């Protein structure tokens, strides 16, 4: 061999010998020429979250050429707010299967959330998803809307507008598309068409509140003040809309594990008044992450579903500790639970038991206001307990203390009215109930009913 050939062969041999070591050291190459999947970050300490991600990681190690395994590992990271390894996994999934719309979408979604210099890549990726013909129409519509929203945020409304129109024309039943179209028409002054679309969204859990707000604005702009006030009122009563239905990101919810996931789920269930399911979540929280906070959450959940004996057991458990004795809400929830048990005892004719429970309830609620002197619920429910025990002087004092803490709450005035009526001071009771009627919303029937009953 000529010297130059010898040098070349030696260099090639060196590279072949050294390269695997280099990639091994970097951790880029795993088996079969595929990169090693990212490790679970040390900062992620929640055992449940770590366990889930590790399971998905093992699936990649078992089948490193499988794009879905990589993409799903990305989702597992993403579901636990680990965007850097998530992006690496999505990119690898895209390399392995360029026809699967999920991975470029989820990568774009992650880049969009992160902002910064990568935002133009997100725009390109959303466009790419729109062009993947193998994706379903639903998926493509969502990709179009995500792209349009991002372009709007970037101040490129002229590019976004035709995309919204395209999405609405293709899929007018999609609430996301319909809402954007309705708002666009409203902005253009096409009031009638905008109203039709927005009113059509009233039953949609994804857009009922947003559409009510948009209708309120549209009505006020059109000079229809009464209509505006009606929509205003409705929008104020409605719970927050659900996030737009998104088939790309829906699997995230199934993947979320750990304390944070459970806390978020509980908050959502409580806000939606899904109290039964909230108890399950609260129980899981208290079991898996025992602390005073999670016990208090469980206590609140149990009182909400009127599981009073269980609530009393949890409250007793909390109050056993020295720290627990200082917890205002532990005492007040215990008081509420005992009040509820007293109701049941009374309904079953157990007079002695009723009195004992009412006395205990008054004591617990009294402790709550001793610890927090402006704790209005404590005063109000204590007044109720005292009223039922016939301790009217003290009940009046306590009810008035509750009103002074929260003069805006009509319930306080109603409790005081009951106490005054029981004391035979009917004119005062009526005046107090009238104040409750004044404070309550016109659609709230209870103060009016109570007032009518007092006047009879």
């Amino acid at each position, binding site marked *: 061999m000529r010297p130059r050939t010898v040098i070349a062969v030696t260099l090639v041999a060196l590279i072949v010998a050294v390269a695997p070591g280099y990639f091994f050291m970097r951790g880029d190459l795993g088996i079969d020429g595929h990169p090693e999947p990212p490790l679970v970050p040390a900062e992620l*300490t929640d055992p449940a979250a770590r366990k889930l991600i590790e399971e998905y990681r093992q699936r990649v190690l078992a089948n490193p050429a499988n794009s879905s395994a990589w993409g799903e590992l990305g989702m597992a990271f993403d579901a636990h707010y680990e965007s850097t390894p998530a992006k690496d996994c999505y990119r690898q999934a895209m390399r392995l299967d360029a026809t699967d719309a999920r991975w470029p979408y989820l990568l774009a979604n992650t880049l969009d959330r992160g902002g910064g210099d990568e935002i133009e890549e997100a725009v390109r990726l959303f466009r790419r998803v729109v062009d993947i013909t193998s994706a379903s129409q639903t998926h493509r519509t969502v990709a179009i809307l995500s792209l349009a929203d991002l372009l709007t945020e970037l101040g490129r409304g002229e590019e976004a507008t035709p995309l919204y129109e395209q999405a609405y024309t293709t899929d007018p039943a999609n609430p996301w598309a319909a809402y954007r179209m309705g708002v666009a028409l409203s902005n253009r002054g096409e009031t009638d068409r905008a109203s039709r679309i927005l009113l059509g969204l009233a039953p949609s859990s994804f857009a009922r509140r947003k559409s009510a*707000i948009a209708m309120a604005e549209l009505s006020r702009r059109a000079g229809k003040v009464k209509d505006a006030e009606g*929509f*205003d009122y409705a929008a104020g009563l409605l719970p927050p809309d659900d996030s737009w239905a998104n088939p790309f990101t829906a699997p995230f919810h199934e993947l979320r594990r750990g304390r944070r996931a459970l806390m978020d789920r509980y908050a959502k269930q409580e806000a939606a008044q899904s109290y039964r399911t909230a108890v399950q979540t609260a129980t899981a929280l208290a079991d898996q992450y025992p602390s005073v906070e999670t016990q208090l959450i469980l206590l609140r959940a149990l009182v909400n579903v009127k599981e009073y004996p269980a609530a009393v057991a949890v409250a007793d458990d909390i109050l056993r500790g020295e720290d627990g004795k200082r*917890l205002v809400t532990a005492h007040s929830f215990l008081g509420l639970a005992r009040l509820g048990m007293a109701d049941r005892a009374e309904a079953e004719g157990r007079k002695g038991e009723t009195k004992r429970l009412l006395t205990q309830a008054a004591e617990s609620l009294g402790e709550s206001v001793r610890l927090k002197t402006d704790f209005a619920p404590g005063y109000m429910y204590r007044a109720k307990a005292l009223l039922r025990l016939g301790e009217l002087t003290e009940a009046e004092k306590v009810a008035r203390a509750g009103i002074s803490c*929260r003069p*805006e709450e009509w319930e306080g005035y109603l409790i005081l009215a009951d106490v005054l009526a029981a004391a035979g001071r009917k004119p005062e009771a009526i005046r107090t109930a009238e104040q409750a009627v004044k404070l309550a919303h016109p659609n709230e029937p209870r103060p009016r009913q109570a007032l009518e009953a007092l006047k009879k």
Partner: protein
Amino acid sequence: MVIGTGGCNRAPPSDKPTAKIRPAAADWFEDVTDAVGLNFIHDCGPTGTYFMPQSMYGGGAMFDADGDGRLDILLLQGAGPNSGVGNRLYLQTPEGKFRDASAGSGLDFDGWNVGVAIGDIDNDGRPDVLITQYGGVRLLHNEGSGKFRDITAESGIVNTQWGASAAFFDYDRDGRLDLVIVNYLDYDKSWPCNGTDGKREFCGPRTFPGTIPRLFHNLGPGAGKVVQFADVTVQAGLATKAAPGLGVYAADLNGDGWPDLLVTNDGTPNHLWINQKDGTFKNEAMSRGIALPDNGMPYANMGIAVGDYNGDGLSDFFVTHLGNETHTLWQQGPVGQFRDRTQEMKAVRTAWRGTGFGAVAADFDGDGWVDIAYVNGRVHRAPTLPEAEHLSAFWKPYAERNQILRNTGSGQFQDVSEAQPVFCGRANVGRGLALGDFDNDGKPDLLVFSVGDRARLYRNVAPGGHWVGVRVTDPTRGGRDLLGTEVRVTAGSRTWIQVAQSAHSYLCASDSRPLFGIGGATAYDRIEVAWPDGKREVFPGGASNHWVVLSPGTGKVP
């Protein structure tokens, strides 16, 4: 859990420069904190208890406390009752330095002091001080020469809730300043919150119920009393909506000449209380478009920056939110209607995202367009930024860098924070931000209040631009500043609008004098004024770069 034994500032924060600050050719601000002698360090009491007010402190004020024509500075301490850590009053000297005049001022009391409102409640020409507290309130009457007297008890003002921002305004147009106090949460300090990592953390707003604001009607002087107030909250209709209120702005927001109230609420829809002209208010935020951002989500609404961002003669609102949300810019138009224009005005994609609190609007770079500055600081722990090294270990994970959005004209914005290292290069747990021209040079300066950190004064040194400063006073009312006056300055084809109001931003009282950046105009053509009583007057034009003083009855009726 380890409870800190010292206050959150007991080890004074280091002032050494941070690593990532990049020099910029044209910084708009110079940090003059040391140079002027402002040596205030905030003390919020012992850390480690996660007493929630600590994470929401605190405020300060820029106002002329001693009547010498120069802005002075009041800064609040929150270490709690009997801590011995009192508020600090700094009086400005003729040389532009600040002298600690706290001792004997009557303002140097301790407590859980939260926010400040400034207004002359008895028409004696001297601005009085209202301080909101966690569980209380204090009203201090200005006795002159930088001395104040506590008249809370005799005034009839009672507020046992967690007070946040407050504003003086004359809602019934009777010539006496009334008061609104925005309350935050019905906080239960015994509830132990944990962070996502399971360790103790400050609670969030959703753990506790919201509260109602309190409206106090100024009844004028009583028998032997400076002034008396009546709590008219319930009859005024303000008791119908409990919410976690944080920010407040009082001005005529629907063009009928009567002052309305914008209240920002944490995690729930904002309230826009429209004055019904009969002593009552009605919340019309939803149908006027300012309750919620475009996506219908109730964001954590905090500080309010008021400005006419697109130059159409109507006030718009920039409201700060959490770092994982988007600050929202509500543009007004037509009068009394608002629309979320955050995206169109390019205020979404900022250089970085932070949890914004205090926010102010002014023409910082003198180009005739109103810019926005806001201070950031987290409410929950996150990885520490390198720019936070000067802070105590407890507060480091909460610190973020402040931001400035430059108005590029016609209401579109560009985040110039990277190029403004003096104001934006240092991480802090930013809360209060006050605006004022402390050196009367016609350029808006900034006062930053950060939890457990030094308060910082930033002098505006941006080159170029002309300006007009306006003070609106009423000699028949002791020469007091007429809060709520709407001032319009016209130069050529452009008109600028501002309202004389010190209450905006978050927990702070700013300089109430409207200061207009009029760009390249060397003169202005006229000034139109709508006084708080609804009357209007026009004043002649003049050369730019001057302060003018206007009073009712001295202009022409249009």
